[in-house]
């Protein structure tokens, strides 16, 4: 069991409060996912030629300033570091390939969570309330976000196994459910030269979809192929630079509910996570149909 939440704020006046609006949603999913939590938030752009790299270090006392200093010294390009406990966002105009190689060589224990112009990712073990408090989710601003609370059923409880998973740039996915063929998917993708960081089933789905889109499929086509290839149960919520997208497996084995309001679109595994949203009684509530793709644009 896991909990998923998504929030896309249409009213620009509410965007500085997106974190505050999301907090009761994430906390509401504690019983569905008490062992880890994570958030991907799309906010201020890193700038035209820059990207944000969300980084994670296991050590809470990790010296991020030194990493920033080394980055600038070694690569001759300014890397801006924004630290939140053991997470940091590194903003730079260097290519992802260059940054990844440098990280692997000099800081092999620092985990790269995401790359993108707009997206920051935070994930860790602990209850949703603890994780949210640790990284200040409640104070974040942005246009849209994807959150997850995890109750692990198929792989270890570690920050790397927590959701969201990312692949490519400004693209993330959270999953409620379980896949029965992640190993064959992983083997198939590894033959395509795609590297994996964990043995998690969701990572296999994430890299499968990202691979399809990199091969030229649009999200709709990639998901159609996903329905053919992904065996198991899933409600998947995806975030891109300007949209949220939701699908459920053919048997709708895992729950989801949507609230569409003039000011926002909110998605959660259960209504109890939507109950605290402002004016939710005037939102249009509906349960997404199996094997249908729902997309909401910023």
């Amino acid at each position, binding site marked *: 069991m896991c909990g998923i939440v998504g929030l896309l704020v249409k009213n620009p006046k509410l965007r500085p409060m997106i974190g505050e609006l999301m907090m009761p949603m994430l906390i509401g999913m504690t019983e569905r996912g008490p062992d880890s939590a994570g958030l991907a938030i799309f906010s201020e752009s890193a700038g035209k030629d820059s990207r944000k790299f969300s980084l994670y270090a296991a050590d809470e006392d990790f010296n991020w300033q030194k990493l920033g200093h080394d980055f600038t010294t070694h690569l001759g390009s300014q890397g801006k570091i924004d630290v939140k406990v053991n997470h940091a966002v590194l903003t730079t105009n260097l290519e992802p390939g260059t940054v990844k190689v440098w990280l692997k060589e000099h800081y092999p224990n620092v985990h790269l969570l995401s790359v993108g112009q707009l997206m920051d990712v935070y994930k860790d073990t602990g209850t949703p309330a603890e994780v949210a408090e640790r990284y200040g989710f409640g104070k974040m601003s942005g246009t849209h976000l994807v959150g997850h609370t995890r109750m692990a059923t198929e792989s270890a409880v570690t920050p790397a196994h927590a959701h969201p998973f990312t692949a490519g740039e400004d693209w993330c996915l959270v999953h409620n459910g379980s896949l029965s063929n992640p190993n064959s998917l992983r083997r198939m993708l590894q033959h395509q030269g795609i590297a994996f960081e964990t043995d998690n089933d969701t990572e296999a789905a994430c890299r499968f979809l990202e691979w399809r889109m990199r091969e030229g499929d649009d999200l709709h086509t990639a998901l159609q192929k996903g329905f053919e290839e992904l065996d198991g149960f899933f409600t998947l919520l995806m975030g891109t630079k300007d949209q949220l997208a939701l699908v459920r497996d053919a048997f709708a084995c895992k729950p989801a509910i949507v609230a569409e309001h003039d000011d926002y679109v909110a998605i959660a595994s*259960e*209504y*109890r996570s939507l*109950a*605290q949203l402002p004016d939710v009684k005037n939102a249009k*509530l*509906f*349960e997404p*149909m199996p094997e249908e793709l729902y997309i909401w644009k910023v």
Partner: protein
Amino acid sequence: MESLDLHKISVRDLNQYLHKELPKKKDVKKLEILNPDGMHSIAVGMDAPVDIDIKGHGGYYVGGMNKHANITVHGNVGWGVAENMMSGSVRVKGVASSAAGASGHGGTLIVEGDTSLRCGISMKGIDIVVGGSVGNFSGFMAQAGRMVICGDAGDGLGDSMYEAVFYVRGKIKSLGADAQEEKMTDADYATVKELLDRAGFKHDPKEFKRVAGAKQLYNWNADASQEY
């Protein structure tokens, strides 16, 4: 009328009150539950002839295992509303998610809106009346009871059903294994009328078709060619 506010007490406190204290209060015939906010297991295991109004949206298993109580939800509900109900009634003014009325033995479940998948799965004698449509795999392995669907039915209606009978007013996307459409009799029209009246829905029973099990799965047929 007694009023219980789930912003002030927990669902566990509420249910313990409903199970232990309420039956002692012979004068309380009606009570309301405020601020359900999608919480689970509200008013499960009722065993008292009282009217309960839930003012808002419920979570999973609202009115599960109900005996004697008449429960009205003024909103939507999550999975498994009135699951394993024995008697009494549960009415949902909004829509219901998956497995509405699952395994119900008796009583009446009325959903004014749609239900999601697997409505009436393994029903064992409950009556279910749905004002809207039901999702895929509804009535799977339904053993006994009646289900009236005023809207459409999704894929696989009544798959592997036993002695239950369904009445569908709208379109049936597909019937499940062994389910078949049958001719309506006068007794069927009377049944549909009785259930629609109970629910307060105004439709002409003539608009409904009957779906029941062909009973071809009751016995193993050694002569049939098997594909597995």
